[in-house]
C-alpha cells in the first residue's frame, strides 16, 4: 500500500506492506543506505535513527508506525557533516570500519539533545544499545564529551 514518510525534511511516498521495518524502506525504497542493518532484533543499534527527535531502532519499527512522524537519518543530521558530533568524530578519528558509526552518532545525538553535557554514566546508559565490533568505545566517549564542548561554544 502507498505510505507517505517524512525523511530528513523530504516527503517520500512508498509502496510497501505496512509491517515492513522502517530500516528496509529507508534503504531499499528511499535509497538512504547510511542507516545499517546489523541484527534485525534491536540488539546492536546499527539501525538507529530519530523519530520525532527520539532514538528509534528502525530494524524493528514498522513503517506504518512512522507515518506522520519526522524521521531523521544520518544523512539528515546535517547537510555538510557540521553537526558537533560529526566534527568531534572527525577530530578524534573515531571510526575504524565505520559500519556501526551512523547508529552510534544518531544515538549520541539523541543523548545530547536530552543532556547537553552528559556524564560518563549518562553515556554508558545511552550508548550501551550500540555494538562496535572494532572497539571504538573509548573514542566514542571522548568524542561525545568533545561534541558537548563544541556545541556549548
Amino acid at each position: 500500500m502507498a505510505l507517505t514518510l517524512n525523511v530528513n525534511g523530504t516527503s517520500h511516498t512508498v509502496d510497501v506492506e505496512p509491517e515492513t521495518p522502517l530500516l528496509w524502506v529507508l534503504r531499499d525504497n528511499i535509497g538512504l543506505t547510511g542507516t545499517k542493518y546489523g541484527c534485525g532484533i534491536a540488539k546492536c543499534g546499527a539501525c538507529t535513527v530519530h523519530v520525532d527527535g527520539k532514538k528509534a531502532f528502525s530494524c524493528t519499527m514498522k513503517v506504518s508506525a512512522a507515518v506522520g512522524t519526522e524521521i531523521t537519518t544520518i544523512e539528515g543530521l546535517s547537510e555538510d557533516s557540521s553537526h558537533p558530533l560529526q566534527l568531534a568524530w572527525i577530530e578524534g578519528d573515531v571510526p575504524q570500519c565505520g559500519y556501526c558509526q551512523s547508529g552510534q552518532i544518531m544515538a549520541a545525538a539523541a543523548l545530547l539533545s536530552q543532556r547537553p553535557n552528559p556524564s560518563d554514566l549518562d553515556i554508558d546508559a545511552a550508548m550501551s544499545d550500540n555494538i562496535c565490533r572494532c572497539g571504538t568505545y573509548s573514542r566514542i566517549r571522548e568524542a561525545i564529551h568533545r561534541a558537548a564542548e563544541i556545541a556549548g561554544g
Partner: protein
Amino acid sequence: MTTMEIDRRTFIVTSASAAGGLMLGFYMPTGADAGVMGSPWTAEEGGQEVNAWLVIDPDNSVTIRVGQSEMGEGVFTGMPMLVAEELQCDWSKVRAVYADVNRHVQNFAEPYMVAAGAAKETDNLYQRMGTGGSGAVRRSRLYLMQAGASARERLKQAAADAWGVDRSAVTAENGMLSAGDKSGMFGEFAAAAAGIQLESEPAIKTPDQFTLLGTSVARLDTPVKVNGSAVYGIDAQVPDMVFAAVEVAPVPGGSLVSYDFDAVKDRPGVIAAYRLGEGGIGVLHYNLDEVANRVTGIQSGVAVIADTYYRALTALQLMPKEWDDGGHGDVTDTSIINGALEVLANPDDPSYNPAHSVGDARSAIDASSNVMEATYTTPYLDHACMEPMNCTVHVTADRADVWVGTQNPPRAIAAAAEEAGLPEEQVHVHNCFLGTGFGRRSRPDEVRQATAIGKALGRPVKVIWTREETARQAKMRPYSVYHFAAATDANGKPEAYWNRVVSHSIFNHQIPQFLRDGIDSQAVEGLDKRLPYDFANAQVDYAIRDSHLPVHWWRAVGASQNAFALEGFIDELAHAAGADPLQFRLDLLPEDSEFRRPLEVAAEGAGWTTDLRRGEGLGIGMAEAFGTIVVHVAYVTVSRRGQLRVETVDAAIDCGHVIHPKMVEMQMESNVVYGLTAALYGEIHIDKGAVVEDNFDQYLMLRINEMPEVRTHFALSGGDKWGGVGEPGLPPIAPAVANAIFAATGKRIRSLPIRNHDLI
C-alpha cells in the same frame, strides 16, 4: 529504466531523488579534499597515471591505489602514507581508492618494480591483494615505497629535461619540483614522467629518514564514515537491481530436501526461487601456487528473489522447506569437546605427532614426584562481523560485476569467474568498505553463492544474509584443548614441560598441503619451538580432531587461544612456587628474550604489585604473533557478588617500527575489545549439528559500559623488525584477565568463556 554499461572508469550508482524514486547519477569526485570517496572503487578521471599505484591530476592532487582492504585497520591511510613518504607529494591532496583487481589478475608487476628488486616478474600487478595475517604494512611497505620513489625520480627527470638541467639538480618537495629559479607542480610533469625510463631505480628511505611515516595524520576515510556516505558491500546500488534472501542447510553438510515456492510465489514483489548448491560446506581450497584459490561447492539451500529485500526475506521465511542434517544431527559442542578431551587424556593416542622436543620431558615428568598438571579448553567462535554477509552481482553472457566487501579480491574474482563460467579477465570485483572482516571475509563463499544466483537470474541482484544466516553459516574459529604437565624442582622452577594440544585444524580443513608431519603450525602457534620460555626439557604433541563444522581464520588465529592456555599454566606454576608472576616469567625467559622489555614496560605502566586487597587483581598475559610481541597487564575488580570488571589494560607492543602511532593505539584498543568479548562471553554451542547462537541476544558483545581503559605503551626495538599490528594485541587479553581474576579471588579460569565461571 535504461541499462548502462558499468565499467571501472565510469561507475554508475543510483541516488535518492527528492521525489523518492531512484534515479541514475554519476558519482563524481568532489576534489582532493575528499580523501576517500564514499564508493572506494570510484576511478579517477582526468589525471595522469605515472605508474600503476598513482595518478597525478593537473591540480597536483594525487590518487593512490590501495591493494589492501579497508575494514577498520586503516589501510586507506597507511598504504598511501608509504607511497607519499617517497613521492614527496602534498599529503593534503592525497586521495585513496582501491586498486583494480581485474587489472591485477591480468597484468604482471611493472618492469621498474622488477628492476628495483621490489617485485618478481611473475608477481601480479599489485602484488599482495589479500588482507590478513597482519601483513598490510610489513609485507607491502618495500614495494609501495618503491612505487613512490620511482615516480618521484621520473617527475624530477621530466622537469630536468624541460629545464635543461641534470636530475640531481632538481628537488621534489610537497608536490613541487624546483631547480635554481625554476619550479613547477608535479601535475605539470606527470605526463612526461609517465613515459620516462631510468637507467637505475632509486633506493628507498631507511626509517631514520622518514618524515611522514611515524606521524599520526588524520585518517582519510573518516569523513565518509560520519555522514552515511561510505559504501559497504551491503550498500551497493545497481540499476535494475533486485534482492535475494537465502537460507542454506542449518547443519553444515546437510541439504535441502524440498521447498514449496508455490506457497509464496504470489506474495507482493516475489520474482523467483532457486535451489542452491549440491551439498558440501563451501571449502576454501588454498594453493599458494595459484594467483587465487578457490571456494568449491555451494552449501545446499534456497534463494528467494523479490523487488525489495524485505519482501524476499518474508517470502523465504514463510516458504515451507525441509532439510536433512547430513548425518550430523546428533553432534553437539559437548560431544565434540568430549571427543577431543578423550584424546587429550590419553598421551599414547596414535593421532599425536610431536610439534616440539627438547631433552626428555616425558621421562623427567614420569620420574618426578613434583608434577603440576592442568587442562585448558577454548570453544568454537563466530567472527560476528558487524556487517552481515552480502554480495551484489550482475552476470551477463560476457561479463560479471561483483560488489562486495572482501579481504581477498583475487579469491573473489576466482570464485565468481568459476561460477559464472567466464575467464577471470571478464570478471570485475568492485571492493567496498568492509563492515569488519576479522578473517571471515577472506573466504568468498558468499561471492560464489551470489554469482550462481545472479547467473540464473540474468539481472543485477543483491544477496543479503540475515544476521541469523550469517551466524548459521559461520566459518568458525576452531575449538582447542590443552593438557600441561610440568615437573618442578624444590623451588618450584619447572625442569620439564609437556604440553599436548588437540584441535580442529584449519589447515587440515582447507590447506592440507601445509600440514608438516601431522602438525598444523597455526594450531600450535606460540607453543612449539616458538615457546617464549626456557625449559631444559620440553615436549609438545599435537593431534587433529575435526568435526563436520567449517573452520576458518579468526583474528589472531591459533595465538588467539593458545596464549590463554599457556599463560594460564605459567601463572599456575608461579603461584605454586610462591613466586611473583612477573618475576617468575622474567626468570623463565632466556637472557636475550625479546619479551623482556615489553613485559617490563607493561608491568611498569600498570604499577605492577601483588599486594592488593581481595577483590582486586593484576594479571599478565603475553604472546608473539605475526612478528610482534604484545604484553598485557590487566587490572580487574571482582565484587563480593562475583561481579567482574576489567578496569584497565596496560598494553606494551614491540612491532619494531610504527608508521602511524594513533592507529596502532586504535588497533590495540580494538584487539582488547575483540579479545575481551570472546574471553568473557564468546562460545558457539552446537545442537543437533547446528549453530545455536545466531544473534546478539545470545552471542553477547562487549559494550561501552564494560570498556576498560586501554593504555598503549610502545616498546619498539626497531632495527630489521617490522611486525604486524591488526591482530597481535588480541592473544594476551584473555590470560591477563583470567590471571588477574585468580589474583583477585583465588579462582583459576581454565576454560573460556569466563561467564561460565562462578567468581564468588
